[in-house]
């Protein structure tokens, strides 16, 4: 993988690099002697594809497999992808006993058996469920193999609850996204190798440092305009590249801009991949009405102006529809306020959610409310690297950030002050640094707006 860091774009073949990495991962997983294999994957590097392919290979090799994901949506998504790739593979979907425990689309697939009891699914090639559900399974024969998806978002204690169910496992995840959290203090265990509030991977590696670690070197989602920034800001020691180059993707509008700030920021984002719509500096409540309104107007104009995207996926331009747009916020009440504002403007079908819920999702264009916009302070929550990383890495074409002026000054006034805990590996880069990197890049694409 040395070619990655030293080479120029011209002699870098993303497909070859990705294939090389995948081959090594499959080799270690299928034929290696270690009980675990860890794969780090930057945003949009084909993590799900890797999980599906590995599952199929393991099934083909006749090894019973359990798959652990973190949310029901992730599990359902994996089941559908497996079914798409191999419609003959018998798959089990273990689910909770709640109503609507799984996607009803699974009921239409004859090879997928769903049940809330692990016993009913015994003998199937692949059984998938959430970590929370697996934790309640007991008195079963351990599986030979497991794949743990989104392992960096899984907490150490939830791995503890399921690790007895498998003999060997492949852990896949994105170290740059949001760390797991707990709603009560856990400083008491900080520094212990098995700190229950730490991520599953950090506990796993603390106890098994010899495990092979791989990483996927190419982001297929992020465009050439975004990959270098995200890589520098959030993955400074494990750089990755974009799978496409500058000419491969384009965003354009059928309707010319009317000269308003909203249209100008859209034009800037279409041309450069980034746009910053900056409102005047002001301390505001979380649901800053002006910022929310500005955000909603940007989305409205994005749809009204007939956006068209061109990408490597198809030779023909595709219209930019509402389902290919997402709005990201830090807090749930902000998301709710944006939803209301969008509904008032008659916009439907646009995803509006918090960073936590946007993890793992992909859109053509994202519009983001900056986590520090209008705040009088910069808390650890708002500075968390993963939050900004998730918000700034969901897009295939362009990302537009709406923010109050003054965030750079706010950052300078609030250096990170979290107490240093003995024995805890310091995480790099810290949120403060990453925020500054992203902000200075965004400032080159700034459009000022006075409501």
């Amino acid at each position, binding site marked *: 993988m040395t070619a990655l860091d030293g080479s120029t774009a011209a002699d870098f073949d993303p497909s070859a690099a990705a294939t090389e990495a995948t081959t090594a991962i499959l080799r270690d997983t299928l034929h290696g002697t270690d009980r675990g294999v860890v794969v780090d994957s930057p945003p949009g590097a084909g993590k799900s594809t890797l999980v599906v392919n590995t599952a199929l290979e393991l099934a083909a090799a006749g090894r019973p497999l359990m798959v652990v994901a973190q949310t029901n949506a992730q599990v359902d998504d994996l089941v559908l992808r497996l079914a798409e790739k191999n419609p003959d593979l018998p798959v089990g979907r273990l689910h909770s006993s709640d109503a609507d425990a799984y996607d009803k689309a699974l009921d239409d697939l004859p090879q997928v058996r769903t049940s809330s009891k692990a016993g009913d699914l015994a003998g199937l090639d692949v059984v998938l469920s959430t970590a929370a559900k697996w934790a*309640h399974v007991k008195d079963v024969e351990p599986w030979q193999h497991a794949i743990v998806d989104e392992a960096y978002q899984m907490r150490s204690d939830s791995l503890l*609850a399921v*690790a007895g169910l498998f003999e060997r496992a492949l852990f896949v995840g994105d170290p740059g996204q949001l760390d797991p959290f707990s709603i*009560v203090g856990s400083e008491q265990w900080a520094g212990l190798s098995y700190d229950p509030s730490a991520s599953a991977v950090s506990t796993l590696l603390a106890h098994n440092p010899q495990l092979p670690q791989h990483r996927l070197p190419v982001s297929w989602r992020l465009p050439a305009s975004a990959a270098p920034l995200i890589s520098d800001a959030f993955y400074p020691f494990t750089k990755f590249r974009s799978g496409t180059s500058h000419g491969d993707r384009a965003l354009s509008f059928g309707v010319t801009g009317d000269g308003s700030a909203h249209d100008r920021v859209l034009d800037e984002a279409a041309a450069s991949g980034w746009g910053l719509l900056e409102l005047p500096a002001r301390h505001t409540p979380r649901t800053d009405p002006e910022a929310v309104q500005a955000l909603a107007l940007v989305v409205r104009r994005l749809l009204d102006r007939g956006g068209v995207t061109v990408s490597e996926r198809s030779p023909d331009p595709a219209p930019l529809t509402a389902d290919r747009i997402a709005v990201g916020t830090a807090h749930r009440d902000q998301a709710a306020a944006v939803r209301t504002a969008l509904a008032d403007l008659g916009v439907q079908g646009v995803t509006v959610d918090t960073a936590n819920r946007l993890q793992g999702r992909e859109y053509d264009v994202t519009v983001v409310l900056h986590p520090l916009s209008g705040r009088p302070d910069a808390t650890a929550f708002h500075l968390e690297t993963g939050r900004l990383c998730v918000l700034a890495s969901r897009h295939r074409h362009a990302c537009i950030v709406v923010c109050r002026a003054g965030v750079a000054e706010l950052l300078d006034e609030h250096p990170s002050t979290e107490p240093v805990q003995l024995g805890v590996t310091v995480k790099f880069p810290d949120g403060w640094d990453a925020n500054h990197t992203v902000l200075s890049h965004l400032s080159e694409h700034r459009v000022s707006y006075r409501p």
Partner: protein
Amino acid sequence: MSLIATLARLQAVQSGRAQPMATVRHRRLSERPLVFVPLTTAGEAGAPLGALVGTDRGRPRLLVVPQPRDRELRFAFLAELAEVVLPYVESFAEETQAETRNETDPETGKKVKVEVELCVDAPQLIVPSRAGVEFVRLLGRSMRFRRTAEQDPDTPYPAPPRVPLLGRWLTHFGERAHVPGSAQLLAMTELLGRHWATGQSSLEDQHLGALLSWIDPPVGTSGAEAAHQAELGRDKEGQLLCPPAGPATDPAFDNRLLAPAIERFDRARTALQAAEDGLDADDRLGELAAAQREIAALIESRTRPTWDAVWRGLDLLRTLPEAPRSAERWTRDLWSYTGHRDRVLAGEPPQPRRDDAVTAARKLQRREEAQARLEAQEALDDPLVMAGRRLTGEAFVGEVTEAVMTYTEDKRPRPRPLITVWTEDQPHLGAGAKVYRSLQGKPQSAEFIGYEEGGVVLRILDKMGRGKEPDEGSVPTKGDRLCWTLFEHDARGGAKLPDAEQTPWTHGGPPGEPTAEQPDPLTPEDVL
């Protein structure tokens, strides 16, 4: 900070008085709490300087370490502390009631009912501030691995007999203080801060004197002025009028009063050791006693105002009626106390220095459950707390404008009434969201169907009895005013964790046979 807390603080600034954040008291206060006001020595973590402790407001017991760097004197202090605290803690151990508990029979693996004892009341420790809670934990940690001469005749510095046991109990209280909603060890500043919002920052709220000034200012002054005076006011000698609640002391006190007094004590002690004859020794013993009395008076002068402030805080809190659901949380404290009593009686070793992987995970899970339970219970007990949840879109109150009966299409149809609730709140209801209301103390759940002209449409799902027709009173009718929450009313149990002997390879494998923890080894750094 939530919107309602910000609003309350703004109102406090405007009015000059703290504003209520609760209409009921959300923690059980014991009839007979033990108040503990410790002071620590500056620069020497874990070297106590003195304390006021006791259950009688008018007659606190003053404990003093005249020379905190002297191990013997510290042990004497801890032995005295054990004399006060342990009889109090143990006084709740005798009176028990019989309870039944479900346990798994180790031989058959079946669930069986077992009759067990539950203490009917439990001790409650009150310290002035959060730092006091941490100090209790630290004291516990410093004592529980000590050995007495009886346990180990060769130990170089044997601890007085009851000191290790005191360490175990203080450790228990310190651990319990991490459990949300527990009332075994409480910090007065946190108790007051839960029930009132002041016009100062939450950092300043950690000053007990300032906090009380906001809540109950002297007649004729505003809370802001009184708090300012409490924080900064000094007398002619430059000493704070309202000494900090500790355990840390004011540097001006340390430098100008305490240090010279300790020096006089040291001199008197050296002189006594050098005394040549009995008459001489008598004189010098008198000087030593005088020096000791002087230090004791200094310590009392710094702790007594805090002692009184803690009791004043208790008075203020007792003006609020107790929240109904705090009894349920107190019962959990009773179980915890009874459990530790049994472990001590059974001769189990002290709590280990570090939790093993399974214990740590289990504690974290239980605390998260306790936090979720506490948040739900506080909201259900208190309309003011619920108002905060309504403001954040996590609950809504409204009037039922329509109720239509529908049934499931099963062989045995079950009732699934649809109700429409008109509300001015703005709940964050997503498709298929579940909402809950309290029906005779039990949560009844409903599914969010959508918005209609008349308001929020819900389908009631349960608590309607077994028949086709719902039980009397189990379905809301037109005109009812109801409060629905988007959060569950009780916490769900967490994942089932393996036994410690079955710790998996990902977490380092089984910890092995538990070995008795050794006392802390003596190192050259141990100058105390």
